[in-house]
């Protein structure tokens, strides 16, 4: 290609324009990579992974004669510790109309606030509308940790 005086300014412009676009593009590209990485490095507000649905809590976090609702995947599970220290876990979904049950210390059983359904501490429906007992879950104690898993 024979350099042409007339063309030169245009080529120069072209060259500058291309260099300009290239640099700009490169900068934008680098920015579009760095931005997500920096955002990623910033710790999210929640701070940390939530306790697993399988590992419920520590032994010293649940008192005797009390109950706790644990999230097991997408379903609630009620973990109870009887007055004599036994640990049991049941599905916390009431078999009547799916409300979440609770441990009732004064009644000495598992109670559903919606329609006064009552289950004994073995999950059996003893009074009120619930037609079936609560599904039982396996409770295993590993050291200080209480693990809940599905019953096979």
């Amino acid at each position, binding site marked *: *290609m024979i350099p042409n005086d007339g063309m030169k300014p245009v080529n120069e412009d072209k*060259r500058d324009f*291309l*260099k300009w*676009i*290239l640099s700009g*593009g*490169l900068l*934008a*590209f680098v920015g*579009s990579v760095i931005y997500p990485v920096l955002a990623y490095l910033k710790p999210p507000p929640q701070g940390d992974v939530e306790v697993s649905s399988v590992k419920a809590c520590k032994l010293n976090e649940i008192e005797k004669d009390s109950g706790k609702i644990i*999230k097991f*995947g*997408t379903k*609630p599970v009620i973990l109870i510790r009887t007055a004599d220290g036994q640990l049991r876990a049941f599905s916390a979904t009431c078999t009547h*109309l*799916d*409300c*979440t049950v609770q441990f009732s210390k004064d009644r000495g059983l598992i109670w559903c*606030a*919606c*329609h*006064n359904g009552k289950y004994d501490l073995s999950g059996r*429906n003893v009074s*009120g*509308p*619930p*037609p079936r007992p609560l599904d039982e879950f396996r409770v295993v104690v590993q050291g200080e940790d209480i693990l809940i898993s599905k019953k096979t």
Partner: protein
Amino acid sequence: MDRVRSIRRTAQLIVMLTGWTILAVAGDQCLKCHEGLGDKPSVLFKHDVHYRKGVSCAGCHGGNAGTEDMEQAMDKKAGFKGVPKGDDISKACATCHSNAETMKKYGSSLPVNQWEALQTSVHAKLSVKGTEHIAQCITCHNAHGIVPVRNPQSPVYPLNVIKTCARCHADAAFMRTYNPSLPVDQLDKYRTSVHGTRNLRGDPKTAECASCHGSHDIRSAKDAKSNVYPVNLPAVCAKCHSNADYMKGYPIPTDQFEKFSRSVHGIALLQKHDVAAPACNSCHGNHGAAPPGVESISKVCGTCHALNADLFSSSPHKKAFDDRKLPECETCHGNHEIIAATEKLLGVKEGAVCSRCHSESQNIKGYGVAKTMRELIDSLESSTRTAGMMVDDAEQKGMEISEAKFKLRDARQARLQSRTMVHSFNEQKFRETVEKGLTTAQIVRSEAEAAIQEYSFRRIGLGIATIIITILAISLYLFIKRIERKQQAGS
């Protein structure tokens, strides 16, 4: 020798013929003799339906009824059984009563399955002696003075059945030997019931023990085949109570069973076989059967629906209803045809029960409360529904939304609790319950919204990044071309 034998034979024949003739003329010799002795069975037997039909003592006891001679009559070889003991008694009855042909011969239209039915019943269990059934036929029907059921003298005539059954079932000491946990107060309770009082006054149409429990095939109430097993019971009550002809003369409707079958309770019990659902006896009582009084309806419903009953009892409606003799729960929910209670019952619009008493010109305060409550619960319902739809949308888009879904349960639960809280008829309490649900639904909505926005953000972000990269790529390509052009020019 032959001659002697043939003479003896002829003599026997003459004697037999004479005997039979005498019998035909003289009748049941057993009876004649025993009557003379003055023993009770023979006195009773004279009134017995079997006697009238021509059955002799030998018909059940065996032996020869035609001869006066005791030895001959009660000869084992002639089939004499003596006084049958234990199951032999019923077997003796069954010899004829379970044989359709025999029964036809006597011109009877009685069923022939009683013995069979008895053997499946709880009364066929072995008695404490261990050698026979608890009950034999004669336990209820008597032994010698048996009369048909329609005969007012019969122990199983409707007006007498009670006493017959109570002979054992009201005897605590006796029942203890078989089933200590079985109550023995049925008779007492029965006497307080509508059936019982009418029965006492002499109405044979009204229900007595056998009407519900059956006569021969009586099973325990826990037995799924029993007439009084909860799933089967409503049909048993309906046998009379849904029969318009039978119930003519009694001032009560006959559509209860039909209505009940359509109700929530009926569908649960009769179709889904949920024995926790109420049968007729759950609300009316079984032995002490009577409709609950107006002031006690909420207590009866409250045996299961405890929360609603408590709320109602402490609400202003309790006094208002009782004063006007309105049947509490039944006023709004019905008695037999109770359908699922939805929001439609609440409020002041078409189909709502509140407007039956509350209007803009009458009981205005209640009108306002009803209107507000309906509005609140409707807003909760639509809020929860929107939240649910948004969660589904986010899930469809592939976003991680399990926590919001979990919270949605609480919003749905608030709706159920609000429906219960209606029964306080207290706007403040109701509002509190609804607000809890609304707050949760709002949280779920914002989380779902955030997830959906994130979805769009990712796509927009990708678009921008792609544009940047494309521009960069093109300019890089042009740059390469330029360098190569320069190189070619240079070389």
